[in-house]
């Protein structure tokens, strides 16, 4: 678990390895873990896997009133949240850095998102769910953000004076966002003492290192932001080296995202495209195909019992139970016990009906227990048990 503190053994082990310029997972110091980008059926929906770090992104848009200071600009909002991980880790830092790098680098043409100045603009929201943290969360989040933004399309809008018409995707093709450039973050972990700088740190390296350096570069090798976390003092040379490295990494990453989008758009035209789904391989994962013919394993004399009961219903209808067609029956987990009785007592009908219990006690052939609670585990006596539960407002009928 992430919340577990780092043991001293682990720490010294990694530092020892760093002193020999070796990484724990055998990577070279400038080697990225395998990156996988999978797109979903919706626009702007992707799952990015970097090693074991998994980030899921969804871009959404809504019409929004613009800020007074910028009346003709759309709004971009990025929020990262933890899902599936325990809640000990805090993502505010990642949120801040992402917002700073992506908003302030002006990569999105926000003016193109204006519908009517001072009244209506598009608000683009990027929701990142960090499913698993295994180091370089910030880098993975930035890849997911960019991949989702590049993939996203918003509906076409036409404003005719006072009216604003939003076209659905079936009427008009949605429009992709216009991006000026594609910034992406490369993260470094620095072991100052051993002069060892590594790209794409894993979780342990992330925890042990002295300094964390995140540099944001776009595909034109222009710097969009730097974030330094930690206490080591960095020399100018080191920073220059790192930024050169980051620039080349950014180009590679953007290319990778672009090719992933191209593959996705190609797949999208085929009908069998299913979007996100688990990979099924030899080692892990399994799939199930349901055949057309499912053999029924219910009670063998199901049909006969049903007919029998139907007859009884008709006979008893006027004085015992009023059952109208189309009544919705709900069984909650509370009456688990009663349902499981079905197997051995085939000719029992349990009726739990809040309305029709009082008037029906005159019939001799039927034994009636009033106020039969749902969690009561009394055995079923007689042909019918009409019961009443004050707490539940839904009647339940279980037949066999």
């Amino acid at each position: 678990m992430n919340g577990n503190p780092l043991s001293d053994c682990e720490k010294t082990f990694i530092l020892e390895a760093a002193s020999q310029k070796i990484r724990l997972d055998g990577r070279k110091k400038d080697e990225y873990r395998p990156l996988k980008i999978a797109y979903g059926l919706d626009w702007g929906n992707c799952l990015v896997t970097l090693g074991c770090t998994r980030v899921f992104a969804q871009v959404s848009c809504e019409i929004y009133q613009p800020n007074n200071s910028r009346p003709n600009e759309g709004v971009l909002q990025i929020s990262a949240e933890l899902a599936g991980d325990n809640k000990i880790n805090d993502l505010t830092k990642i949120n801040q850095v992402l917002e700073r790098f992506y908003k302030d680098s002006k990569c999105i043409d926000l003016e193109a998102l204006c519908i009517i100045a001072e009244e209506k603009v598009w608000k683009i929201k990027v929701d990142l769910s960090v499913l698993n943290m295994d180091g370089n969360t910030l880098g993975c989040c930035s890849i997911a953000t960019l991949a989702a933004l590049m993939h996203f399309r918003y509906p076409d809008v036409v404003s005719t004076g006072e009216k604003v018409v939003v076209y659905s995707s079936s009427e008009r093709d949605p429009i992709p966002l216009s991006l000026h450039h594609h910034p992406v973050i490369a993260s470094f972990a620095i072991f100052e003492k051993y002069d060892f700088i590594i790209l794409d740190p894993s979780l342990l390296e992330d925890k042990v290192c002295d300094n964390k350096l995140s540099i944001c570069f776009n595909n034109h090798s222009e710097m969009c932001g730097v974030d330094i976390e930690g206490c080591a003092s960095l020399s100018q040379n080191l920073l220059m080296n790192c930024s050169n490295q980051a620039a080349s990494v950014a180009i590679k990453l953007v290319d990778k995202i672009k090719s992933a989008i191209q593959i996705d758009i190609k797949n999208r035209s085929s009908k069998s495209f299913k979007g996100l789904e688990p990979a099924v391989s030899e080692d892990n994962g399994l799939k199930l195909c349901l055949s057309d013919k499912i053999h029924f394993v219910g009670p063998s004399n199901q049909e006969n019992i049903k007919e029998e009961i139907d007859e009884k219903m008709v006979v008893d209808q006027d004085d015992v139970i009023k059952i109208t067609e189309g009544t919705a029956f709900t069984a909650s987990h509370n009456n688990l016990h009663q349902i499981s009785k079905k197997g051995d007592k085939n000719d029992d009908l349990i009726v739990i009906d809040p309305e029709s219990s009082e008037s029906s006690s005159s019939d001799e052939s039927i034994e009636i227990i009033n106020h039969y609670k749902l969690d009561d585990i009394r055995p079923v006596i007689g042909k019918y048990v009409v019961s009443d539960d004050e707490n539940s407002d839904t009647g339940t009928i279980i037949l066999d």
Partner: protein
Amino acid sequence: MSEEFLKCQLGFLGNTEGSAYLSQGKSTVSVSVVGPFEPKASKCMYDRATVDVTFRRKTGSITVHDKMLEGIMQSTCEKALVVEQYPRTTIVVTVQEMQDRGNLLSTCLNASCMGLMNSGIAMHHLYAAVSCAVTEKEEIILNPDETQINSSVAYLTLVFANTETRCLLTSHTTGEFSQKTYMDCMDKCYAASKEVFNFYQKVIKKSSIFN
């Protein structure tokens, strides 16, 4: 319905006790199970574990309807777990929607069961959810797609336990239907749930090292 019905990958998240990534038709969810761990004092119960199910939409915000789905999942999970075995702890199940093309509730329930299986937390029984739609001609479609759900008169999600006798755990229904239809749906879904349990067995066999 000879197309792929379920696809699953267990243990795909490293930092959790149990996780599952399941796609049912075109709907995909991922589930992570964390715990049992010590909660805040206010959430602590001296004789049993508390089960906390969180449902997350991909856009972050959840609606009243989603809260209801969360409640259904919570009660189903809680019944299945042996909560008495883990006093003063909490078990957190997070269900993240990744793609929704109908049958979201049954997908979430199946995925949560697989996540719990993967976590190794003691359970009373397994459960499998199957959805079906009833058309105007009283036809029952198992595991319907989005258009079939929209054109149906009733839509049912039934959850069964893997016991010898037929044991209905949860039933969530919308629309109008006769009692006979309900029984028919139950028969069909029960038969399909057997297939799902077989699938669970295969997945566990494959993912465990002792196969």
